[in-house]
């Protein structure tokens, strides 16, 4: 490891030398997005030994990329993935007579409510799924369903921070930041951690995607599916040649500083950064141009759907695949803004859940199939999760309130045993009765599949070696291939 690091270090000097040609003329190695070198440049005050501790990866990774499909607001497990016939039988009865009811976010307890959707078994595995997800139902043999998820928080914001950062308060590094901190990125022109903003930024805001106390370079770059997908990515100059001329002049003048100082790594790194920034200017917009995608592919993702939300989520999913192809480590998709808001149906669940499902179902199925046919699913872990589930009894007459005591998520792709159903809830889908699985377990598993031991993957902050999984978490062995 030490030899390896040493080589990386020595080659950097040479590279900086190479950079002194005309702007954009020379390919850079993944200077600042790759480790260990980027880490040294980024980390101020981090102790040398800590920086050099071999962390990457701890063991053979099964996944190189993660696509995190965030289901904002809390999808109802009993309407989507976890069938509960007893709800049909006891529809309209008083939940307080059936089981102990926890305090809820809205304190507006209605009656036990059956699902609006029928469940059927699908695929070779016979996994149950409701008719909310007709397309996804055709992929059940690729996915592992966990019906026994629990969260610590019944409020969106804390539950979101918990899901994204492993702790229920603001300011901690997001899971994507932890992954890139550990592994860097494979692409020198793109950030390692990307959030595709579908229209809904989750409660808790952009802090769900931040670097927390990790160096700023690990925060997510938020991309929108538009012409200038990232902030400040478009040159303001009228012509490219003008910008290039300016940058050339800047670099030429900056050389004076280097000559005077003799040695100034910080400044050299900043100069090198302009190269990278320049290249990102063209690499990033190219991402969102689907010129080279076939009609069949576009169709697979639902980009020609009549539902504009299916179209836009389809574009996000396709963009996610393109990011995977370009070596981006961690990609999160946020939900499209359908008329019924996020999955948070405190009322009018039938309409809201249908619209949300319709927007994401075909694109997600398309993504799985497309990755699979291109051989990318072997390297890519897909995680589909919300921050909590919903109650089996109604809120008011036709909604459901938050339920952190049981919900369903699923994973697919690299290292995952398709067709698995893991964990059980009680007959109402209200509480977990078997294989209780925490957010920490989910994080431990995601890191594990990326080749990272969650217990050893730490960062010193506030006098402690802090982990994504705090002091908890166990890899969910039961869903691994």
């Amino acid at each position, binding site marked *: 490891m030490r030899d390896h690091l040493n080589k990386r270090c020595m080659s950097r000097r040479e590279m900086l030398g190479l950079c002194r040609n005309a702007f954009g003329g020379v390919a850079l190695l993944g200077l600042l997005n790759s480790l260990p070198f980027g880490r040294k440049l980024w980390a101020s005050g981090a102790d040398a030994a800590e920086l050099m501790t071999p962390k990457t990866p701890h063991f053979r990774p099964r996944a190189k990329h993660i696509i995190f499909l965030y289901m904002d607001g809390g999808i109802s497990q009993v309407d989507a993935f976890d069938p509960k016939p007893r709800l049909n039988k006891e529809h309209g009865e008083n939940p307080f007579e059936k089981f102990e009811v926890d305090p809820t976010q809205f304190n507006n307890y209605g009656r036990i409510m059956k699902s609006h959707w029928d469940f059927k078994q699908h695929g070779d595995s016979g996994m149950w799924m409701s008719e909310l997800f007709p397309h996804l139902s055709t992929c059940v043999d690729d996915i592992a369903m966990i019906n026994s998820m629990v969260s610590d928080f019944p409020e969106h914001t804390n539950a979101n921070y918990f899901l994204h950062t492993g702790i229920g308060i603001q300011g901690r590094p997001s899971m994507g930041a932890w992954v890139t901190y550990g592994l860097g990125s494979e692409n020198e022109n793109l950030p390692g951690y990307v959030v595709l903003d579908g229209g809904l930024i989750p409660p808790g*805001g952009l802090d769900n995607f931040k670097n927390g106390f990790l160096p700023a370079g690990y925060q997510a770059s938020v991309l929108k599916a538009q012409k200038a997908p990232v902030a400040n990515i478009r040159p303001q100059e009228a012509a490219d040649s003008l910008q290039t001329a300016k940058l050339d002049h800047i670099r030429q003048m900056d050389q004076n500083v280097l000559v005077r100082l003799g040695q100034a790594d910080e400044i050299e790194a900043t100069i090198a950064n302009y190269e990278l920034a320049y290249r990102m200017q063209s690499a990033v917009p190219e991402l969102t141009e689907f010129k080279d995608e076939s009609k069949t592919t576009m169709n697979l993702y639902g980009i020609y759907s009549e539902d504009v939300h299916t179209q836009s989520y389809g574009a996000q999913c396709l963009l996610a695949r393109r990011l995977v192809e370009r070596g981006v480590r961690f990609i999160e998709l946020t939900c499209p803004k359908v008329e019924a808001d996020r999955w948070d149906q405190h009322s009018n669940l039938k309409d809201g859940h249908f619209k949300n499902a319709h927007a994401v179902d075909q694109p997600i199925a398309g993504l799985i199939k497309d990755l699979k046919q291109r051989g990318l699913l072997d390297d890519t872990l897909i995680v589909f999760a919300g921050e909590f589930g919903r109650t089996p009894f109604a809120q008011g007459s036709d909604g459901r309130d938050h339920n952190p005591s049981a919900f369903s998520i699923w994973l697919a792709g690299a290292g995952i045993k398709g067709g698995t159903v893991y964990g059980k809830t009680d007959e109402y889908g209200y509480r977990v009765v078997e294989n209780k699985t925490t957010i920490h377990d989910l994080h431990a598993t995601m890191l594990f599949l990326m080749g990272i031991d969650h217990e050893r993957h730490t960062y010193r902050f506030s006098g402690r070696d802090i982990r994504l999984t705090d002091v908890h978490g166990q890899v969910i062995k039961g869903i691994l291939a």
Partner: protein
Amino acid sequence: MSKVARALIWFVLPASVIVVCMMAWQGANQSSKSVGKSEVDFNYHIRPILSQNCFTCHGPDSSSREGDLRLDRLEDATALLRDGGRAIIPGDSRNSVLVSRIESDDPNHVMPPPAAKKTLTPRQIEQLRQWIDDGAEWKPHWAFIPPGKPKLPAGIRKKPLAKQIDFLINDALEKRDLRPVPSTSKPRFVRRVAYLLTGLPPSPADLEDFLTEDSKDFAKRVVDHYLASPHFGERWARHWMDLMRYADTMGHEFDFPISGSWHYRDYLIRAFNADVPYNQLVREHLAGDLLESPRRHPEENFNESVLGTGFFFLGEGKHSPVSTREEEMIRIDNAIDVISKSFVALTVSCARCHDHKFDNIPTTDFYAMYGMLESTRITPRPARDYEQHDKVLARVGRIKGQIEASLLPEAKRTDQASTSLIKQIAFNKEVSDTAFQLLGDFRSGDVGEWTFMDAAFKAYGVKEQLLIGRNSVEVPSLGLVSSRGLSPGVFGAFRSADFVVQHDSILVRAAGNTGTIRLIVNNFQVIRAPLYEGMEQVVTDSSWQEYRLDTHLVKGQKAYLEILPGRYFEHEYRLKSNDYIEIDIAVAYSNRGPRLQPRPEPTVYAKETLPASISGLVTSYDSLASALHDSTYFLGLDEGTPINSPVFIRGNPAMLSEEAIPHRFLTALSENFPNFPQNGSGRLAWADAVVDPANSLTSRVIVNRIWHLLFGRGIVETVDNFGLQGKLPTHPELLDLLAVTFVEQGWSIKELARQIALSETFRRSTVANESTVERDPDNDYLHHFPIRRLEGEAIRDGILAVSGRLDSTMFGKPVEIYLTPFMSGRGRPPVSGPLNGNGRRSIYMSIRRNFLPPFMLTFDMPVPFNTFGKRNTTTVPAQSLTLMNDPFVHQQAEYWANRSIASADSQALAARINQFYLSAFSRRATNPELEKDMSFIRSQAMAQGVPLEDIGRSASIWKDFCHILFNRKEFIYLL
């Protein structure tokens, strides 16, 4: 060798690192090749080994202790072990079990066990062995040993602190045979001082003044000039805000505002500018509401001290938590974290669930503090308190006395009805039933355990005092508590003691317009739907009505009732000039409420019916009293009901220890602070303990922060953690010298900054000496001045200063954040702020937790959730993209260029370029630079078809040129 490769050497040769630290401590001049006998120091070598490798299972935390062995205390480490033998036998390493277990080959026997994934180096084992053989001398952790002045040669001792600093720094360099570099040039020095003290570049005019006046006192003049600048406070307040996780909103789902947050920011700016002694500043933060003689604003005479408590509520906050108890725990935990890290650089929050794993901080320390903060209430407070009007108050009091003297005797003569009524209800017949819980009955004029805060509220007995209004004088028929005793629009709060909610509802009889009745459950302030809308009632009827609070969700919780004139609008407290409220009874009940006797009508004297002498008094009373109206508020602290908190076992608020922890100071320092008071919250006593010179941490922590801010690195690098997990000081004697002198010199931040800035060490060039770099690669010994990148705020403010767009207006409401399309989510302000922030300095931009300024974040502004005494300095492409493409940067380049073109002077190309350089880099262009720049400009003119003679007037060419200067590394680095 690159820095990375140098770092590698550190990794490969950890022993040399240890030697370097050790030499710093002992000041010994020894070769770094081997560790000699006398060189092993417990604090600098041995405890770090034990702490890193052993304390997790053999440290202070009893819950995770293995084998009944603890190695953090001598008497335990040398005690007889369960299995025989002793871990440490002083003088005999061979028979010390500690050593044999570490050296064991047996995986079941070896320590640390393989599962811990930790191994000691041979060097470390050798040091342990040697230390034991030398007698195993134990010392308290260095930070708990009181600082003492180092022994300095007599000639040095008498010199100013700056010289003493240089002596110690140079001594350390010399002992390592490291050669310091010479001083930097005068212009660079001016730039360094200007930026580090004020966060702005020197103006070309100031620069010229400093450079042309040939004087021995050059450095002094520069340093004193910038210390005296009002911009000093703006920069240093921002540093302090990093510690206090300053923000203007609460984050969470809707990002509600923190009422009046910016008053605290303005307070800081004034305090740093006025050089308020640091011990005073600390006391104001922790107990500014409790000081006997608060510090007052020199001109406006308002209470400054109380504004310090505004830091407390600046954290995150959520609405509608399902458990307010847990929400309180999160808030208090955060406050303890912020307080302990900021003031004493200890991580007390680590002891929330268990005893601290490394430091001597038992979990009871955390809950002692917890109880103190639980005994503290959050309250709106006027940012300009009424006492500034003390003369008015005196006059108002006199006039009131005169009116009372003429009206009261007559009022008392009439009507006996209410007198008999008071007798009847004083027995509380209506509410004596056990179905009721009487929370307060003020109809006799007695308030029991309820408390008044500030001026507005007073209890009025029957016909004892008058309520003087604008057009009438009222004699209450029955006792009541009213906020309009002085005048409507005056602020105050009237609160019950804590009680446990036992019923479904609370009835409060009240009158007023506008006033608020709130039930504060577990100190929870963000009252709204869903869940908590029933905890607040707004009173808008000047006739008496019964108001009902719905409390069924919070039964069993601790709470208090709060009565305020005015009201909250989306969590911002406002008080209008006519607002008032009065109440006479509060009762909790579950099924049916009490039937209260209606209040008899008060005797009202209309002003026009009064004799002219009295009505004249009423008129002058009113015109005087209405001037007392306070209009601007912040959320500060007040005393609540004293609470001793039990320990939450494993941090779980549902699992409580039987014993409650009395208020006290930190165990590690408590010897000096016995007899901690148990009345009240104890905040003032805690604050006094923090700033007591017997406290070994506080002075060291603040001088280290000042050093860190000036040099970019602390003498203790981990500025927020002086515990065992923090770094050791590189210059322990210097740290102590600064700490002791700082206290001697009256805790003056400016004076210390001044002395440091006047030192030769501070004046060194950034150009390192290559051969010295090899031996001190991280510049631990300051043989040169570190190259520093400016913070986001300084970069943005610098751009504005250079472009000429800077608006130096100080203080006031934050300028709304400029919203890019990438900043979306709930709570997004409906309207974006201006791109250029109205030209105001960055400290005046709003800090919305869910919409933090991208420019600042990109340049490493910390996310405001916890104490950040040391910012990261990262290098990421987003920074380049910002300077290359951000519309703000382009806008300012254009502004700068146009201003220059419009100005009469510097029309010649070279002269203009030099002007630009002076503004941007505080120096003139060199000849080669001039040539290159001119050739760039000419080639651009050619490319754009601008005739050479028109270059001087070409807005686009000069805009591009100015933009280039913003992108030069020299612009964002102090070189």
